[in-house]
């Protein structure tokens, strides 16, 4: 959003305060969630200023908008990641990307988001502004608008700085019908790029574990990549972003929902050497590690090469690869031929490999 459009759209409803919000040294206070003037000022000077758009600027308790014809998709995602700032992103952009991607994985074009903030008393307003600015940039980058929101403040010690819940709405284009139950034996499995970047980037900052890495989180919105894919191959059977639980969780979920088996090939699965190395010494399996900017596509074999070419031509799918096949299997097992030559299961992750990753 440009500075010009912000000024134009907020002028009419602008309220006046005796002091401006101290965004350099100020802290979140309980009054910022109390419904009084302090809250109004926080909304005006921080959120409205960053997110400004015609729907939000009306300053109603809800947003009212028209949607184009077609099936409407809605998704919600809460973000509690720790730490709030990490290599390659922060909770702000992550909270936009996460929900935009959840909507986009239906093939839909994401349009509008809501944002709910739970802030901890004492959290620096400067950091909050950084987060909000990052959200605004992510929304602009994804072509979506944050049209309604909510702010609550909890006492010091009862939150962890900032939690954000976003909900997104989008519309599915005509002729697109994806679902986790539509995958059939014979489909090809395609990933859009290297796996495990997000989880390893977060882990590199965790207490007791700090290690130096050049790996950055892959957090990014994928709706433009999805739009390019759908435009060429509308009959993609299913898309899924392999977030928590990584690729293994995604493949197992879909195997069960579509009642099929899967056979993947380790040598075809893109994993950066740095991610492999970090996983090696942390005792993790890259297939279990979370991603925030990758997708897995299942499509008819006849269309797989065409789809792969479209993905590789897009900046967010340059490293896309066909990693395996959907097969018939009553037991719905996901198997992998290892680089070593043997076969093994790719099972669900057990327990928590890494908490609060998104």
């Amino acid at each position, binding site marked *: 959003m440009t500075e010009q459009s912000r000024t134009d759209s907020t002028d009419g409803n602008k309220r006046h305060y005796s002091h401006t919000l101290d965004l350099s040294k100020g802290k979140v206070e309980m009054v910022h969630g109390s419904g009084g003037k302090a809250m109004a000022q926080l909304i005006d000077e921080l959120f409205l200023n960053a997110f400004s758009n015609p729907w939000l600027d009306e300053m109603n308790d809800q947003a009212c908008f028209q949607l184009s014809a077609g099936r409407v998709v809605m998704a919600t995602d809460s973000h509690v990641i720790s730490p709030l700032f990490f290599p390659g992103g922060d909770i702000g952009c992550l909270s936009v990307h996460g929900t935009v991607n959840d909507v986009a994985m239906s093939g839909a074009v994401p349009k509008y988001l809501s944002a709910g903030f739970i802030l901890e008393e004492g959290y620096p307003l400067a950091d909050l502004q950084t987060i909000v600015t990052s959200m605004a940039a992510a929304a602009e980058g994804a072509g979506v608008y944050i049209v309604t929101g909510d702010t609550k403040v909890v006492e010091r010690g009862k939150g962890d700085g900032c939690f954000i819940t976003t909900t997104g709405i989008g519309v599915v284009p005509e002729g697109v019908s994806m679902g986790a139950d539509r995958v059939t034996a014979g489909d090809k499995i395609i990933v859009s790029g290297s796996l495990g970047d997000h989880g390893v980037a977060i882990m590199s900052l965790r207490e*007791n*574990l700090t290690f130096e890495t050049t790996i950055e989180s892959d957090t990014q919105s994928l709706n433009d990549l999805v739009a390019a894919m759908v435009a060429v191959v509308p009959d993609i059977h299913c898309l899924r972003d392999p977030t*928590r*639980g990584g690729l293994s*969780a995604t493949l*197992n*979920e879909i195997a*069960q*929902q579509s009642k099929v088996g899967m056979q993947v090939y380790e*040598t075809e699965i893109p994993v950066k*050497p740095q991610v*492999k*190395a970090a996983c*090696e010494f942390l005792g993790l399996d890259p297939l279990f590690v979370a991603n925030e900017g990758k997708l897995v596509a299942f499509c008819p074999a006849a269309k797989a090469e065409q789809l792969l070419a479209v993905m590789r031509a897009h900046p967010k799918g340059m490293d896309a690869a066909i990693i395996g096949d959907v097969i018939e299997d009553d*037991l*719905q*097992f996901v*198997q992998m*031929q*290892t*680089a*070593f*030559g*043997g*076969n*093994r*299961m790719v*099972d*669900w992750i*057990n*327990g928590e490999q890494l908490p609060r990753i998104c």
Partner: protein
Amino acid sequence: MKYVDEYRDGGLAREIAAKICAEATPERAYHFMEFCGGHTHAIFRYGIPDLLPDNVKMIHGPGCPVCVLPIPRLDAAIELAVTHGVTLCSYGDMLRVPGSRKRSLLKAKAEGADVRMVYSCMDALRIAQENPEKEVVFFAIGFETTTPPTALVINQAKKLGLKNFTVYCNHVLTPAAISNILESPEVRELGVLPLDGFVGPAHVSTVIGSQPYHYFAEEYQKPVVIAGFEPLDVLQAILMLVRQINEGRAEVENEFSRAVTYMGNSRAKQVVADTFELRRSFEWRGLGVVPYSALKIKDALSEFDAEKRFIVDYRSTRENKSCECGAILRGVKSPRDCTLFGDPCTPENPLGSCMVSSEGACAAYYSYGRYQERTFATDQSHPAA
């Protein structure tokens, strides 16, 4: 990844596998036990059973520290955190292990106990330094690999004059467990467990060296090939074992010569000897009470011994009657022989010790290998995330 990929090369694997197939005499069977859970994990993770001929069988041994820790000692650790209110520092893989009455360290944490996951015992020491008002206990488990670091932190704590740091010592010894298996009636008398040789420990041997295994090779006439944890190491060791059997040899050979010497790490052994002494006996999950198989902190350092500072209860518990972990840890049975395997015992809901750690035979078999058993009643009840 340099120094790792070299040991996972599929082309070389096929070459070694072809040699094993060519050299293994079809008229006989070869039964080798990999002692270490690390090997068990590698065997399943890389699909090594697929590369072996049908007459070369791997038996999965008891070398998984989490698996062999008896429930009463886990219960005691939970008690330390809950009743004594200490800050209990543990390696991550112990946290989910169910103790008696379905309690675990993770559940104790959820109920308010101060349980911390550490990657190194040095982290536990640091937590004690940073929180002088708290009693910090390090829950020490493991074989000879993790023992020297524990010894070092105890000595470091003494040097620092720490008054709030103790160690709950559960360190166990590999040779004692191998002896126990070789002395078991299943091997010696009944012949239930055909055992032709051992894939010897990797990391343990970097500390104790290859020297302790000569006794087994000579006394029991079982070849031992010490192998690294990479899949090519394991395959090469299997080939070396096949050759020893074919040539009628029972020797200690060292495939892991890039890390293991004859005498091992003398400084590590010295600090262990200075800090710990043998327990007369110690209960192992699966193996039962094994004489002189574990270590305790020497009296001179007793101020750092959690068993001396706190009253730590040791109450025997009964395992699930149908659980075959004991027989599986001794190599007498395989995971698929257990009626609980897969239903209800799974890595999410482990009933027996072999299912709790990824290095346990049942967990490795369940997570990586069960596609081979198409007839299993499998647990399909995972909720969609």
